[in-house]
């Protein structure tokens, strides 16, 4: 009993440490961005454009590109991941299900830079040809690859949720004459909704936080994107590009403001999803 209590105390302590670490990261970013925030540029920082030569360090274009890219990628990845998960759980012939999941896990392990590298040579020329002008480095190009990149994470969550439905329910449905597709739609999908939501949240978090795909494929122009075919620079790409600037410059300090925005944005999106979509009871705040 006492050993269990000690284990519980250790877990509580770990939880508190994790919470403090997350809070400390926010505080650190606030401290480092303070000179810029203190100079009364908060509104122009969030809503303005990026013209460092003119002393304007606005991140609105990057914020818009990040949101556009992440949300589009998740919307594209949802049907792709659901379809793959359905195939892996019920629709594909049994002998294909294990190899399919093996491929998914392999895809999850491939470094992001490989995806970006392959897309530069395979997808970008196709996009250039299809659009008819420009370099082919667009938000749409990045979205397509980012959707493929986040899909394995989402598939693993979806498959876990679908497979966790008790076999008793499944057999009862089978005995009533359920076809595999009926079982998926009427039984497995509603039962797996919390895991599917969790997978979407994870996918969104991964899409928002990814640096390499946006950096390699979206074109990196620090301008407000007006369509998916325009170029764009995400917040994470912006941080990666500006981090080489002089440490004492306002330009450098602005990337901490980017970090704060990314931090709050991710937290807000996750909170909204947790409030609006069914999540596992254990994941409820």
């Amino acid at each position, binding site marked *: 009993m006492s050993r269990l209590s000690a284990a519980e105390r250790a877990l509580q302590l770990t939880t508190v440490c994790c919470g403090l670490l997350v809070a400390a990261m926010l505080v650190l970013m606030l401290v480092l961005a303070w000179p810029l925030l203190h100079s009364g540029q908060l509104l122009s920082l969030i809503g303005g454009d990026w013209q460092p030569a003119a002393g304007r360090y606005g991140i609105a274009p990057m914020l818009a590109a990040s949101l556009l890219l992440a949300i589009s990628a998740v919307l594209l990845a949802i049907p792709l991941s659901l379809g793959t998960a359905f195939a892996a759980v019920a629709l594909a012939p049994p002998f294909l299900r294990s190899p399919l999941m093996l491929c998914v896990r392999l895809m999850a392990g491939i470094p992001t830079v490989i995806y970006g590298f392959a897309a530069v040579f395979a997808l970008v020329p196709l996009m250039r040809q299809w659009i008819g002008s420009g370099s082919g480095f667009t938000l749409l190009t990045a979205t397509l690859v980012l959707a493929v990149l986040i899909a394995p994470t989402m598939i693993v969550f979806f498959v876990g949720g679908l497979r966790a439905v008790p076999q008793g329910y499944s*057999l009862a449905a089978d005995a009533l*004459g*359920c076809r595999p597709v009926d079982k998926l739609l009427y039984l497995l999908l509603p039962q797996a909704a919390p895991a599917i939501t969790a997978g979407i949240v994870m996918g969104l978090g991964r899409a928002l936080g990814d640096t390499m795909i946006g950096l390699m494929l979206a074109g990196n122009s620090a301008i407000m994107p007006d369509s998916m075919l325009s170029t764009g620079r995400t917040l994470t790409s912006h941080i990666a590009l500006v981090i080489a600037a002089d440490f004492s410059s306002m330009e450098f300090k602005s990337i901490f403001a980017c970090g704060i925005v990314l931090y709050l944005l991710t937290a807000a999106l996750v909170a909204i999803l947790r409030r609006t979509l069914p999540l596992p009871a254990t994941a409820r705040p």
Partner: protein
Amino acid sequence: MTTTMNGKIRTEKLSFSYGERLLLGDISVEFADQAITAITGPSGTGKSTLLTVFNRLWEEIGGGALRGRVLLRLEGRWQDIHAAEMPVSMLRRRVGMVFQTPNPLPMSISANLAFPLKLAGIEDKQEIAARSREALLRVHLLTEVEDRLGSDARLLSGGQQQRLCLARALMLHPEVLLLDEPTSSLDPKACTGIEELLLELKESCAIVLVSHYQDQISRIADQVYLLGERTLLRQR
């Protein structure tokens, strides 16, 4: 094996094994229509497995291997249940099943009852309501649940859940009803009610009942088979 005119289910040299373990060996038997056929025998001899052979549910469990033929007499002619012209979903809509452990689906009482109709493409709300009411009445559950049809079926007591599962199996008016110890979770009064219902139901379908209760078998069964040592021996 002789073929009777009122046969409903027939097996021809049926063998079934899980891995190396042979459960059923070379069984050729015919179960009558409009009758209750009871299968009894020691635990672990494959009685429940035999039931799942008749609606091909063993295929969903995995690990099994079947040899031989299983035929069902539908519309006056014997049809192989593994034939391509009989999709497994269609077979299972004609062969209802109730399990030993009640297994209501994770939805409301009314949704549980409507589920088989939905699968069969019946969506008329009045028809669904009428059939649900009729099925609940037949299993003596209507008065207990009619004021809470929208509540979660899993909140019912074990006995109520089992009667709901029986009602659900009756929704599509099956031609064969497979019952795996259906009264094991019922109190004596509900058990008597179900037995009376089975006697009514056998007028319109063939019932195959797995049961350990000898008194129940002697009360309601028309044919009795003992399953043991991989063979099925007719006792009555």
